[in-house]
Structure formats: C-alpha cells, structure tokens
C-alpha cells in the first residue's frame, strides 16, 4: 500500500527520485527549446511552456539563460512567468493531482475533496508536494467535466464522482494502473464487418472510463475473432451517463447503452454480434443461460431492458434540443477529415469561395442575427463588417478558446468533437474580412482539444483546404495554435491579444477595438469558438433558417453546460427563447435526489443566481441581463435547497479575485474587499451595516472597473442580495439556512445511531470515540467538518445542525 510507504518515507524524507537538474542540463534544454521556438519576445509563453515541460519547473538559472539567448528582457520574463498560473518556480511532485474547483464541483463538495487529499498526502501551506515528492496538489479553475462532479485528475487520468473517503483508494488505483497501449483501427477489410461500435471519447467520457471500455473491446475482439469497426466519436452531450456505447449491427440497427461498465461489455457485445466460430458460439450460449439463473444482476441490468425503455431517457434528453453548432454529434469521428467532408463539411466554405462575394457573406451573417457566444453578445455581423472595412498591412482572425468560466465546457467540447467545423467557420470569417492568418487561442487545461485541432489542421493542409490556395482558389489562409497559460482574464479580447504578443494578459480600454487595432497593431477579428462553429451552418442553410429560431433579439441556438444538482446533466444545445424551467424539467429531468429546486446559476462568475420564482425567464441576452445574470459563455449550474447563496457568492468572488489581472483599482482591491465582507458573513461575524456597505461597494466596482471581468464580478453578490436577501441577513445572526457555511454548523449524531463504529473508523482526526453498540458522539473541538462520517453512516444518523440554534 502506498500509505504504508508514505509513512516510511516520512522518516527518510530525503528520498526523492527527481534529481536536481544540473546547470549544464538547464542550458542545453533552453538551447533546444529556443532553437525551434524562436528568439522573439512574443515567443516567451511558448518557450516557458516547453522549458517547464522538460524540467518540471522554471529554475531561475533557466530564466536568466533565456534572457541571455533571446530578445526577452528580465522584466518581461518575470512578469509573464508569474502572471500565468501554469508556470511554477519551484519543483512539484512527480504526479500532479488536479482538483477541479469549478462551480459544479464546488456545489458537490470539491473543497472537502481538496482537504481530504491534502490530509492524506500530508500537504499543507508550507509545502506543495507530498513528503516523498510523488504527488502535488493543484486546484484548477475547471476541468470541464462538470457532469461528473466532483472531479479529480491525476496526470492524464480522470476520476469522477469522487467522495472524500475515497482518496486513498484513488491514489492506490492510480499507482497500480499501468498504461496499456493498443491499436484501435485493426480491421480486416477483406471480411465482412460484424458491427460498428461508436464510443464517446470526449473528456467526460474518458473520465467516465471509456478508455477502459475501449481496451476491453479490443481484448474481446481478439478473443472472439470479431471484425468490428471501432469508431471513437466526440461528445454526445449526455455527459452524466458516460461512458456511452452505440452498436450499429450489420443490419444497420442502432442500439445505445449508457453508463456502461467494463464487465458489461462482453455481454452487450455478444447480444448484438454473433461470434464466428461455432465452438465459441455454443460455449457462450451455455454460459449465458446458466448465468441468468445464477445471478440476480442479470435480470435487472440495463442489457435486458427493452430498447425503448433503455433509450427513453436519452431521447427525452435529445428531443428538446436543436443541434446546429453540435450537428452530427455522436456520429462523426472528430479526427476524420473524410467523414467531415462526407457529411457536407467545407461546402459552406466552397460556397463562399465560388458563389458569394465578401459583402454578401457579411450580409448573411448580419441578417442571421448571430451574436457573439462568448458572453456579451456583440452582433457578429457588425464586428465582421468593421473588420472588412478596416485596412491593415495584415489581418488576423483569432478563435477565442480561452474558456475559463468555472462550470462551462462547451467550447472544449466543440473543439474536441468538431474541430473541422470551427476551422471552417474561421476560414469563412477570414475570407469575408480579408484576413490571411488565423490563430487558435486554446487554454492550456484542454490538452485533448489542442491535439484534435492540431490533427485537424494537419489534414486540412494535406487536403489543400489550408495553404496558399484554399481549395484551388486565390484565397490564402494559414492557421496556427497558441496555447494559453492559465489566466481567466485572457478570455477578454484585449487581454488575449496581449497574451498572444507574449505580454502579461492585462486588458486595456476599448476603443481601440482589436478589430481595428489588435495583434501586432493590425486589425484582428476575435470570435468565440461557438460563434465560429455556427457560421458554416448559417452559410449553408441561409440567414432565414437561423433567424427563424429564437427570440426577437437573440437568434439561433445556444450551447449550455447543464450541471450541478440536476438529475441528467450534460451538454445541451437549445433554441433561444426556451425557458429555464423547460431546460431543467424536460431536458434535465428535474433536480437530483428528490431535493427542492432553489435557483440556477447562469453565466458563471459574471452571472448570477436566478431563483425558482423566475424560472420562466426565457434564454435571451437581454432577459438574462434584466434578471441580473448574464448569458456568459453558457454555464448553467442548478442549485437545490442545500446550497447557500452566501457560499456561492463567496465561491465566485474567490474566483474573480484570484483571476483579476490586478490592473485597475476597483477590480484589484474592490473584489478583495467584497470577498472580505462575504467571508465575514459566512463566518457569522458581519453586521447588517456591512451588507449595505457591500451593496454600495458592488455598485462602485461595477461602475469603476476597466474590463468585463471587473464590471460583472459583483453580479453573483448583487443577484444574491436581490433574490435572497433574507439569507444574507440570517448570516448576520449566525445562521446559515442551507447549513453549508462551515463556521455556522456542527455535525451531531442522532438516536438513529446503531453503534456500528463506521464513522469512528473513517474519521481522519479521531473526533469520534470508538464505542461499539453504543450511540456515538462527535467531539466538536476536534471535528474538522470533513463530512466523512455523514457519507459512511449506513443509518443516516449523522446530521448537520446550526451552531447557533
């Protein structure tokens, strides 16, 4: 066991398998990186990323040497390497445990998970890795697997639905799992294909275990000598039911299975595919027959449920949606260029190149009513028009994939599942506005998206879609990828451009808008991923087809990440104008665990909580803003009666305060002061007067901040005060009505206790004395409120009560 080992190494804490890097080694690594990255100041982020990849961190010798061999100044390298959270100046453990602190994970208990890992690995403020230097913990803004919340990622392996009591299990599972390599696409083209198996390989599916399923299928393929075409597909959006498996048999019958586990694979497979060899066929039949009698599981397992019933939920989930940006989801292999073309890909681009002039393309987009999907909703046609009119030596199109809102992962899904569509959208934008260079800005936390886009670009170049003559025309277009380095504020377009130029990502006042004066001082069109992925559909189907969907001012569809306390969360694309209630009740199948629907948080840190009483608000830019929330990039986190509004506000303020670039006074100090008051409130120390102060401060920060981040940061507090003021006021009396704020609650054992001692065994701080067959009690002075006892208690005998009742 790892833990025994940990205890041993505590004594010999010096044993470490990461050797200190010699100066000579550092120099050669830097030389190697600079040789391919370049010496220009704008390459600083790339250079730092590559050096860190090779050395695990950024030693100061490396920084000095980089300044010496490139044009980067010491000031620039210091500013940049401390601005972006990706960069480390001290070595970290061999494996990094990333604990997601996104909204969905937060409401499902991520802080407790983080505490549990720190406790188990003996990590505290003084050190950032475990005593044996094997693990370090990093809290990341959002891993984008919101439907599996809470989520923990160790290196590349993701664990979903983590409980604080499982930490040891997860660590040993990680240490015991080797990397299995297998070939996916081995099919014998000479023989008939038995079936096609589609398996989701989006990040959520992978986290749900689809890779294990895949390796199981590969094993079975060999065992039964099956000729199966394995087809990895992108995200279907049913992220809470992962892994998802779809079998298309020889007769072209589709059968879908959700929540597939590894040991079910064999059965599912053999139900639809008949093995070739007679021997194996008979053997299987007999085993199956006997099994049905021997185990109860078999009868109730989803495999034996009739098809309609099994897929009912899936259909409900998908029926209310309209797929434009996510068209063909679950069918198309993200990596396959041929498939994209077969399904009508690049037709819109060709239509633009051959039939339409620039003005009419911009006109179509303007007429369609498409608005920026990044949050603020600026009319896309208007932006394109300005870009088209502006003259410059060079023009750029940037795809803004720096999605950072905790609780939002639609851009990641689009890039992972439909890279070609985003590329096509970008190329149409470029052709219409006269740009010849495109840049994908993708955040560092999305490695799979980066890989997929890279692969897609490669295929586009090979097929002549990109290059000096785009599909044989005179249009020249090249695209490169820029990986962000972990700064939420870089989603703001002016900050994004500074980041591209290798500077600290601080926004500046607009105008000048980037579309007039942006990257390298040239006109730069910055569009969000979702916006661009809607473009090919609009061009192919016409402006009217698009603007017939939606409300008066908000047209088309919007992709949302539905997560939190919802029965069936996932990634959904809905028509504008649908009400919040419809989304939650019809698509999401209501609130989970039979609890009461309290509010829905829309728009992440820039948005707000809309209470159940206003749930009939339609999804529309203006309507949401009127409610005090914001469309944002599309996170939708459902909250139930166990969620505290003060805690939510504290969570979002902690986030904005951490992510503020620190440039303007109101955002830098204002958010800190707001956070201080909210923290005092959550500790029951604030007074009613402070609530008024808080409200005034919110107003000032809203008026006085420089960019969108600061201007919208008070929204979570303001909507909280608007709809849940009594809850704020209760906190001044030392009561947290939702029983969430740690300082205002305590854990008690009720009479239901049977004395099973489970709680006592699982208590990490020994606050519960071991008393078999007796009612247990909790020592309040020792209790750290880690929630372990409540989770393990089989009798639900542990309750959370208010400290001051």
């Amino acid at each position, binding site marked *: 066991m790892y833990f025994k080992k940990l205890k041993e190494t505590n004594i010999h804490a010096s044993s470490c398998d990461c050797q200190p890097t010699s100066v000579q080694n550092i120099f050669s690594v830097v030389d190697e990186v600079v040789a391919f990255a370049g010496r220009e100041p704008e390459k600083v982020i790339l250079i730092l990323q590559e050096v860190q990849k090779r050395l695990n961190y950024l030693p100061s010798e490396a920084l000095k040497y980089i300044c010496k061999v490139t044009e980067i100044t*010491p000031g620039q390298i210091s500013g940049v390497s401390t601005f972006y959270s990706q960069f480390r100046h001290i070595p970290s453990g061999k494996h990094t445990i990333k604990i997601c602190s996104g909204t969905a994970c937060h409401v499902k208990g991520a802080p407790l998970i983080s505490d549990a890992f720190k406790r188990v690995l003996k990590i505290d403020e003084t050190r950032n890795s475990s005593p044996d230097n094997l693990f370090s913990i990093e809290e990341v803004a959002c891993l984008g697997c919101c439907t599996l919340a809470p989520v923990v990622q160790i290196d590349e392996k993701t664990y979903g639905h983590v409980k604080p009591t499982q930490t040891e299990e997860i660590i040993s599972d990680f240490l015991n799992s080797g990397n299995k390599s297998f070939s996916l696409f081995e099919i014998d083209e000479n023989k008939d294909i038995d079936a096609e198996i589609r398996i989701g390989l989006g990040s959520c599916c992978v986290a749900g275990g689809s890779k294990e399923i895949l390796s199981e299928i590969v094993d079975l393929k060999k065992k039964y000598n099956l000729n199966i075409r394995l087809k990895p597909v992108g995200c279907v959006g049913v992220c809470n039911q992962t892994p998802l498996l779809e079998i298309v048999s020889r007769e072209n019958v589709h059968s879908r299975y959700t929540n597939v586990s590894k040991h079910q694979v064999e059965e599912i497979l053999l139900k639809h595919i008949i093995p070739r060899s007679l021997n194996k066929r008979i053997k299987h039949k007999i085993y199956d027959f006997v099994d049905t009698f021997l185990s109860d599981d078999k009868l109730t397992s989803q495999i034996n449920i009739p098809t309609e019933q099994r897929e009912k939920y899936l259909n409900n989930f998908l029926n209310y949606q309209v797929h434009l940006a996510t068209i063909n989801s679950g069918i198309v292999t993200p990596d396959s260029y041929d498939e994209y073309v077969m399904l009508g890909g690049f037709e819109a681009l060709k239509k633009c190149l051959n039939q339409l002039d620039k003005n009419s393309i911009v006109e179509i987009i303007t007429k369609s009513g498409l608005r920026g999907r990044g949050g603020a909703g600026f009319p896309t046609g208007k932006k394109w028009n300005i870009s088209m009119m502006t003259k410059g030596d060079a023009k750029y199109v940037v795809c803004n994939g720096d999605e950072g809102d905790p609780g939002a992962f639609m851009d990641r899904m689009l890039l992972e599942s439909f890279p070609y569509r985003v590329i096509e959208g970008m190329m149409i934008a470029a052709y219409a506005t006269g740009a010849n260079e495109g840049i994908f800005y993708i955040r560092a936390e999305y490695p799979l998206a980066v890989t997929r886009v890279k692969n897609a670009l490669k295929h586009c170049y090979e097929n002549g879609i990109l290059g000096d003559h785009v599909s044989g025309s005179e249009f020249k277009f090249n695209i490169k990828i820029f990986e962000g380095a972990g700064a939420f504020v870089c989603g703001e377009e002016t900050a994004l451009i500074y980041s591209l130029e290798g500077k600290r990502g601080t926004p500046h006042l607009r105008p000048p808008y980037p579309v007039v004066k942006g990257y390298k001082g040239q006109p730069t069109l910055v569009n969000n991923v979702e916006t661009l992925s809607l473009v090919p559909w609009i061009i192919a189907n016409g402006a009217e087809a698009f603007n017939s969907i939606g409300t008066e001012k908000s047209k088309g569809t919007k992709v949302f990440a539905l997560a939190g306390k919802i029965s069936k969360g996932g990634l959904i694309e809905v028509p504008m104008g649908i009400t919040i209630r419809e989304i939650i009740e019809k698509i999401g199948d209501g609130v989970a665990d039979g609890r009461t629907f309290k509010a829905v948080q829309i728009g992440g840190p820039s948005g707000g909580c809309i209470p159940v009483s206003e749930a009939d608000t339609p999804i529309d830019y203006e309507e949401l803003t009127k409610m005090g929330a914001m469309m944002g990039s599309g996170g939708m986190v459902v909250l139930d009666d166990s969620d505290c509004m003060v805690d939510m506000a504290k969570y979002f303020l902690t986030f904005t*305060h951490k*992510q503020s670039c620190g440039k303007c*006074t109101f955002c830098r*100090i204002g958010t800190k002061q707001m956070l201080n008051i909210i923290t005092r409130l959550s500790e029951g120390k604030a007074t009613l007067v402070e609530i008024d102060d808080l409200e005034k401060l919110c107003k000032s920060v809203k008026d006085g901040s420089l960019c969108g981040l600061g201007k919208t940061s008070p929204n979570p507090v303001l909507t909280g005060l608007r709809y849940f003021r009594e809850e704020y006021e209760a906190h001044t009396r030392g009561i947290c009505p939702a029983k969430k704020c740690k300082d205002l609650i305590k854990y008690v054992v009720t009479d239901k206790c049977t004395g099973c001692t489970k709680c006592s065994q699982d208590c990490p701080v020994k606050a519960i004395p071991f008393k078999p067959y007796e009612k247990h009690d909790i020592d309040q002075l020792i209790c750290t409120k880690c929630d372990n006892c409540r989770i393990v208690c089989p009798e639900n005998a542990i309750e959370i009560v208010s400290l001051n009742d």
Partner: protein
Amino acid sequence: MIKFKINNTDYETQEGSTILNVAKRAGFNIPTLCYKEGLPHYSSCMVCMVKDNRTNNFIPSCSALVQEGMDIDISGDEVISLRSKALELLLSEHRAECEAPCRVVCPAGYDIPLMNRLITENDFEGAVRLSLEATKESVLHCFECKAYCENACRRKKVDIQVSIRNLQMFIYESHTQKRTGDALDKKQNKTDKKPRRFESRIGKMELSEQKEWLKECSEILKRSVNITDRNSASGEAESCMHCDCRAKDNCKLRDLSQEYSVKDPKDKLVNSPIVKKINHNTGLIFENAKCIKCGLCVRLCEDLNEEPALCFIHRGFVSIISEPLTEDFDNVLKTRSNEVIEICPTGALSKMK
C-alpha cells in the same frame, strides 16, 4: 471635427484626442495618478473617471477618446463619489504613514526625520535651518519642551528612543553658539495652527514592518544618548527608523485624498509581506506597502534594454512592482533612479539621502 459636451457646454475637437486632454484645454481639471504625458496609457488608478451621460457609463478619461455626441460629466456627484471610492480603495492597501509620530506630536511641528537625515549627511547647518524655518523664529523650542517626540519615537519599541531633543539642542548650540531658550516668550510658544492635512496612518507597527524599517538604521554600537560631537550626533541620527514618508510634501495620493476629503480607512489590507528594498549602489528605496501599482516606473523604463528595470510580478491583488526575478535589487535602474522617483505618485520610490 467631433462635437461633444462637457458639463453641458458644447465643444469641438479633432478626432483621436483623449477626454483628459480636451478637458484640460477647455480649462477643466481632472485628477490623475497613473497618467503621465508622453507615456503609454494604462488606466489603472481610475481616479480620472468621468461619466458619459449618453450611455450612463463611467470611463477613465486618461485613455478614453472623445467620440461624436458624447455628453461628458466631469464633476457631478456620482463622478466625485466614484473618484473618492477609488482613492479610498487605494488607501486601503496603502499601509504607510504620511508623517512620523515624532513630528505629529511636536508642538513646534519640526520635521524630525528629515533633520535626522540631514545630520546623517553631515549637513548640520541645513538641519538647524530646517527647524528654525518651521516656526519662522530664531529660537529653538526644544529647550522648553518635554520631548514628546522622544516619547512617541517608534525606536522605543526596539531598544531606546532616538535622542531627538539632545540632537536638536546640540546642533542648535554648535551652530548659533547661544542658548536662548530662556529668552523664549511663553505666549509666542503657540505656533499658528495650520489647517490639518490628510494623513495616512498605520496604527500599530507590526513586527515584520519594524524589521524592514531597521534596515536603514546604524548598528546599535554607534548610538549615544549624550550628544557631544559631530560623530555621536550623526551616529544617533542614523538610528532613526524614518517612519515618515519621504514624499509627504510631494505625494499626489495625499493631495487628492485631501482634495476629495477621503477618510483614511481604518483596516488596511496587506497584499504581500511588507518590504523595504534598498539599492546599495544608488540609494534607491522601494517600499511595496506604499505602492499603488500605477506602473509609471515600469512604463518609463520599458524601452530600457541595457539595464534591468522594475517590472510587475504576480497577478491580481497580490501583484507587486519588483525587480526582475533574475536580478538583485542592487542592479536595477543604475542610471535612471532619479527619474522613477520623480514620476512615482506616492513615496513608494524614494532616495536614501
């Protein structure tokens, strides 16, 4: 030409001018902290906020360009209150003291820390002149005084207070060769009370602060309570912790806080460990607790490739101005330290002597 309004009066200007410049030309005064003509705009301090009545948005006038049809409000109540709030927020992380406690309690209002600095530099005449000019009298009040200054001296918390009174008397006597304390008319003792200026206060000195402040002091061995000669005088003067701000008469933050009648916030936030960095080559001092992160010093030296300059490090509330990670503070700004001190709107950058 663009037509627009400032405070309900019509104006016209060329395209591309900032609101600040246009307003200045029209005779309006907009306060600024992070703006300096000739340097790239930054818009961080937000005390230059004005309101566009057309859109109801508040905009920083130093970098916002005038646009057709704007209806700019430069001095309305909302604008004033937003500016005051910006100042209040800046002061809330400005953990610094405008005046040293010794000067605050001195009945004659002598600038004691400055006197100490002059003595350290062996400018005895300057030190005498300084005290006499403060009261515009030819006699020194210290002979009559109960040395409240020494009681207030922060050095007392470390070991013993600086012998301020003895120092004053020694230099006075050694330069005027007379002891005229007796001649002092008690009635004249009361100096004219000046209108009270805005003062930023820190309250109790933290232990970590004390450690930083002692960096400028001499070793304990050089100290002497009885001042008998120039050596002992300068030795004792060197034990002054310089609790005051060297920019007290030249601080834009102080002036604006006075002008907008902002109250000094009681609880000061500290965003990072308080440090006093001293460049031993040039005597440049940087105190991060006084810095308002306007970035003027950074922008001023941005073109400087040959010598390491100051830069921003970290992000958000904890971001600070610092020397590059790869350099010592002793190596920064070898040639331009006077310029950055000049441009600093507060006393965060100053010179030792």
